[in-house]
């Protein structure tokens, strides 16, 4: 119950921030988009696997959004829905053969595939716009034509709704049979097989979910920026997603979003205040987090809530 209250409070706070400080909408939208992608990553982390290529699904969905916006001028809601389908499809196809792998090979294969996508997007500029990417005009949202301010506010509301929805879906998934089986892949996969549950199938389901969530995040990001570039699928981006997952706490979907916000604003202010040393700062923060709070910010919150309820 406490957690739900916290979620509502945070959502309202974010909305208020966005309304009072118009410039904040951009980083908030980016943070929410990242949070969605990270919530996909934590699904994989629950299985004990780290993917260094999940950004490729975000990238794919982003480019899908851009293409469809340019060709067919669809409404933003349709764009998001269709891009998610695209990402899910890609996840299903890739997941089909990638769920055989575990550990470092899983991570590396994802990395390789994302680098292939990155290189292809950069090379075939006639179709993909090359390294400059594809720009597209602001689409209608819910069939209403907005100006920049209005569009961003509407997108913010949509993003918050989607984020809360995604978080709820992820938590329900974790509590479900598939989610519990997914966690068993990390602890003891062989025993899972002995129970008669196909670890590969369970992992495949988790992979598709992760891909869809990343796609959702990517599509949202594309709409915020109005521009998609191959950088969206670069391996450093995937690394950032993992960074955020650990920073926020990979145990709960809320951790993904908290981590995304902390990361976004920390990077922004580190770059603004310590121009030229922001990478140093981020690296040090990460090291400290790993040693002091390996369960992330959410882990700290959870501990606090639990100690309060005990008292």
């Amino acid at each position, binding site marked *: 119950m406490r957690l739900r209250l916290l979620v509502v409070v945070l959502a309202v706070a974010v909305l208020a921030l966005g309304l009072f*400080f*118009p*410039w*904040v909408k*951009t*980083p908030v939208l*980016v943070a929410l988009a990242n949070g969605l992608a990270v919530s996909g990553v934590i699904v994989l982390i629950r299985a004990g696997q780290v993917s260094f290529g999940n950004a490729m699904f975000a990238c794919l969905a982003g480019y899908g959004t851009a293409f469809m916006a340019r060709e067919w001028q669809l409404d933003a809601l349709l764009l998001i829905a269709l891009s998610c389908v695209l990402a899910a499809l890609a996840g299903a196809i890739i997941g089909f053969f990638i769920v055989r792998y575990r550990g470092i090979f899983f991570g590396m294969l994802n990395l390789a595939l994302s680098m292939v996508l990155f290189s292809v997007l*950069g*090379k075939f*500029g006639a179709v993909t716009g*090359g*390294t*400059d*990417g594809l*720009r597209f005009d602001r689409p209608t949202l819910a069939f209403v034509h907005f*100006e*920049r301010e209005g569009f961003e506010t509407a997108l913010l509301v949509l993003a918050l709704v989607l984020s809360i929805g995604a978080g709820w879906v992820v938590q329900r998934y974790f509590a479900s049979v598939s989610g519990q089986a997914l966690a068993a892949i990390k602890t003891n996969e062989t025993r899972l097989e002995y129970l008669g549950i196909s670890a590969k199938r369970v992992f495949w389901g988790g992979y598709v979910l992760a891909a869809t969530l990343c796609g959702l995040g990517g599509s949202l*990001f594309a709409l*915020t*920026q*109005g*521009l998609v*570039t191959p*950088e969206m699928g670069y391996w450093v981006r995937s690394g950032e997603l993992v960074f955020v997952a650990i920073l926020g706490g990979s145990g709960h979907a809320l951790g993904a979003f908290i981590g995304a916000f902390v990361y*976004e604003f920390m*990077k*922004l202010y580190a*770059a*603004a205040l310590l*121009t*030229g040393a*922001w*990478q140093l700062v981020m690296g040090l923060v990460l090291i400290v987090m790993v040693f002091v709070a390996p369960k992330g910010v959410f882990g700290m919150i959870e501990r606090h809530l639990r100690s309060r309820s005990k008292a």
Partner: protein
Amino acid sequence: MKLLKTFTSIAVFALSAGLALAQDKPAELKIGITTFISGAASVFGVPAKAAAELLIDDINAKGGIGGVKLSATFIDEGIGGDKMLSEYRRLVQEQGVHTMLSAISSGNCNIVAPVAEDLKVLNVMWDCGTEKVLEDKRYKYVVRTQANATTEMVATVLYLLKTKPNFSTIAVVNQDYAWGRDSWEIFLNTLKAFKPDVKVVAEMFPKLGASDFSTEISRLQALRPDVVLNTSWGGDLDTFVRQASQRGLFSQGATMVLPLAESSLERLGAALPEGVIVGGRGDHYFLHPETKNDPMHKEFVAKFRAKTGAYPIYPTYHMAQALFGLKTGYENAIKANGGKWPSTEQVAEAMRKMEFKAFGRTISMREDGQGLEAQLLGITKRVPQYPFDVMEKMMLVPADLVTTPVGQKSPVWVKAIKADVLKSDRLKMYDFK
């Protein structure tokens, strides 16, 4: 009673109208500058930042712009396009920055241009070269105080045809990203307009940041093209030149064309042989044949050397153009506004029909926001005065000969260039003195 009411309302109306026209002079003119402070392009961004700090101090010492001092905030483009955008918006919407100077990366220019238009803030594109930004869409608040990729590449073709016209085969080794690809496209299409049967023997696009060009160099040695084009910059260009020089590619007899090499001349030192065609994306050179003895230019070179230990390179000149262009724009707008501080719209408008001078030739601004900047190209030569190559046989190409006219698209225009532009007497040659 009625008279009093009417009188009051007229007075209030007049007062508010007057207030609307007369903007208060701000306490300081805040500008935001995006530049690369981390990442590979910091080889440009950091000297440009140093130049900006130097020049802003100078301008402030002389009273600022219209009596108002400048204060600059820097954004690191190396944090990524989306974060740069967030920071951009924070500066404009929260900190009330009046003007933005953005950006180095063409990708970032593509991102900020529509945002600047929406936010109604003046955005001066100070270094990015993509011609598409101003050709694809008409902006009110976005201007560019330097040339674009089309101008630079067409001028390079003209110089090549003027100095070493006898060639039939050409090869290219460019960085594999938008600039590398687009610059080759413009160059080739322009070249074909003059030499339709030139043969392209190899098109190689090593990835950005490649550390080894061995295969590309071997291939060039095997194919023996007459001309080799390489529009790389920074570490990539340095590595290519050094590896090519070590393996004797330069002494093979091919004409090497390196349009961005002005920024590497000092670093490369003796590694860059003589006889190479180099350019600097504009008439930027600390030994500019027409302006090297200008007291202002000499002072800038000396101060820059004192501050950074190196001679200024083209990004620093681009920064100077942006700042001086901004200054002239404001001053012209103030004059047009009867001495009162102008609105952003008035400055943006003034910047579309002005002429200003930095450390090269006068630059004139067009109605679509594109600046017309002369191009300087030369051939490398060793001289005893400097431990690195200098340019000789320098040619200055006036911008209007080589820039896509307003309303036309570059890919179409370059194909229709008339061959007799080569015979123009406005193409001046200078020797090194």
